């Protein structure tokens, strides 16, 4: 059973084409804008129709071009949270929530009332969407969806319309909601924090193709492609030349030598190192490590520093970025700039184009 997605759709120059199957989970689709992630979501909802393919969610076939199955959006039992929430502007919060309900008015009001209570919207029942804050709009949209008891949740960039603090709070709320939700969830996003925090299983997409897929932990620990590394926000990526079975020369970083944990194959064209994976070394430690020869080390040259609330962003040389945790009360970076940096072979990710 599980989930089976095979979508093939051409739209102008853009070609969305991929196949993936996995177990029921909170599935995140991570990609840059225009990669086809929204079109995938719309195909699942039945808003867009693929040219060919099959979409099956557990025991329900929503679309199958071979057997001419194409359920209407109304029959797919999906709850679609739109990026701008798409609340009906002329209806009140209560009317919006009742919009998808069937049955007599009393019953609808009762069910909508329960849902408003769950989302803390009771006081806003008579308000119009234009009078609500972004967070209230999102809650209303979620209430409107969940009241119809959909078997699938489709979340399209749910937090992109919100600002900082509100975003974080609603993400936590969403996490709880998804945890207790029994159906399948698809979450489309370009934000790796969001994807990591809310999803179990991730699909990385680029230009209509599926680049990588798998459990989020595995994908973040060891992406296999350059695009995958970028999408999981690896800051340091360099072209390489092989110098041995377990060592490479980083062409974009002044030909520094790096040792790898896994043997090099012909497929590997790049390496990636996460900005947090370097560790600082003083002059003595540097020479010790260099002599030991287990980890890769290099001296810091022309550092430039940017301060963030909780970390220093230090460009150490030729574009290598190091993120060093710091205290919020600390503002002088001078002591933080070490003589050199080291990196373990296991932190050097082997990537293919």
């Amino acid at each position, binding site marked *: 059973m599980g989930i089976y997605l095979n979508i093939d759709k051409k739209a102008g120059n853009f070609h969305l084409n991929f196949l993936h199957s996995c177990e029921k989970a909170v599935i995140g689709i991570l990609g840059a804008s225009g990669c086809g992630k929204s079109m995938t979501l719309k195909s699942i909802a039945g808003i867009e129709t693929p040219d060919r393919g099959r979409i099956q969610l557990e025991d329900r076939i929503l679309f199958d071009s071979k057997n001419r199955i194409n359920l209407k959006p109304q029959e797919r039992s999906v709850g679609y949270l739109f990026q701008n929430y798409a609340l009906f502007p*002329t209806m009140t919060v209560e009317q919006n929530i009742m*919009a998808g309900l069937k049955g007599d008015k009393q019953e609808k009001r009762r069910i909508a009332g329960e849902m408003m209570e769950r989302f803390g919207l009771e006081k806003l029942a008579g308000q119009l969407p234009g009078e609500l804050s972004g967070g209230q709009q999102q809650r209303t949209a979620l209430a409107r969806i969940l009241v119809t008891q959909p078997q699938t949740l489709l979340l399209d960039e749910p937090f992109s319309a919100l600002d900082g603090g509100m975003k974080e709070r609603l993400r936590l709320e969403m996490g709880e909601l998804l945890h207790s939700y029994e159906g399948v969830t698809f979450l489309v996003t370009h934000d790796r924090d969001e994807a990591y925090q809310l999803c179990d299983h991730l699909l990385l997409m680029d230009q209509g193709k599926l680049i990588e897929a798998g459990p989020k932990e595995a994908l973040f620990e060891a992406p296999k492609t350059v695009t995958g590394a970028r999408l999981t926000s690896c800051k340091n990526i360099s072209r390489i030349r092989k110098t041995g079975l377990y060592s490479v020369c980083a062409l974009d970083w002044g030909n520094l030598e790096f040792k790898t944990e896994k043997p090099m194959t012909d497929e590997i064209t790049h390496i990636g190192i996460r900005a947090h994976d370097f560790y600082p070394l003083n002059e003595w430690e540097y020479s010790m490590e260099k002599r030991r020869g287990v980890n890769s080390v290099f001296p810091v040259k022309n550092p430039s520093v940017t301060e963030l609330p909780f970390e220093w962003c230090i460009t150490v040389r030729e574009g290598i970025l190091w993120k060093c945790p710091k205290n919020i009360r600390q503002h002088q970076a001078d002591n933080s700039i070490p003589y050199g940096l080291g990196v373990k072979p296991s932190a050097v990710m082997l990537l293919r184009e």
Partner: protein
Amino acid sequence: MNEVIKILSGLDWSPLWISLKTGIVATCISFFLGIITARWVMKSSKGMKAVIDGILTLPMVLPPTVAGFFLLLLFSKRRPLGILLYEHFSIKVVQSWLGCIVAATVIAFPLMYRNARAAFEQVDINLIHAGRTLGMTEMQIFFRVVLPTAGPGVLSGTILTFARALGEYGATSMLAGNIPGKTSTISQRIAMVIQDGDYLTAGIWTLIVILIAFLIVFLMNMISGRNMKHIKRW
């Protein structure tokens, strides 16, 4: 002053009723036809859209007399359609009140159609998608989501349509003629009395027209203003 009272007391009020009746009927027809056509044109392909839109907008940009001429060609009792209508259904368009309605509708219809279409095209497509995924039928979506959202635009289209239908002169005079008590609308009456040199009566009718026009637009604005209060638009 005495003269004004004398004219007023002896005034034939029939043009007022004929104009109002014509305006209301023509607006009703245009309202439904305009909305249906707007939806139909929006759904058609790009090339078709341009052609149909052009044809439907023609009556608005052409001189009304040209539209009147075409209508006369179509409905004349010496022409196939006119003969058919008259002999089989006893319907007479030329020189009749029906002619007033046909002329006013044809001239005013593009205003309704264009405004309705512009209003519908402003509706966020995601609202419709949302309605579908929530399980609403297409009819529910149209009447409960699209129409109310497009409301202000549709309403202003209706106002303009009514105003245009009320004041129609060119096509009406050609198709329906100027038969007192039957097809003589206010605008035709004004033209007639001016030809007779009766500027005072013309002035009185002009004042009446101005009053009606202002009243209607004012009323409609009040209504649409009330509906729009909650919708934030610039």
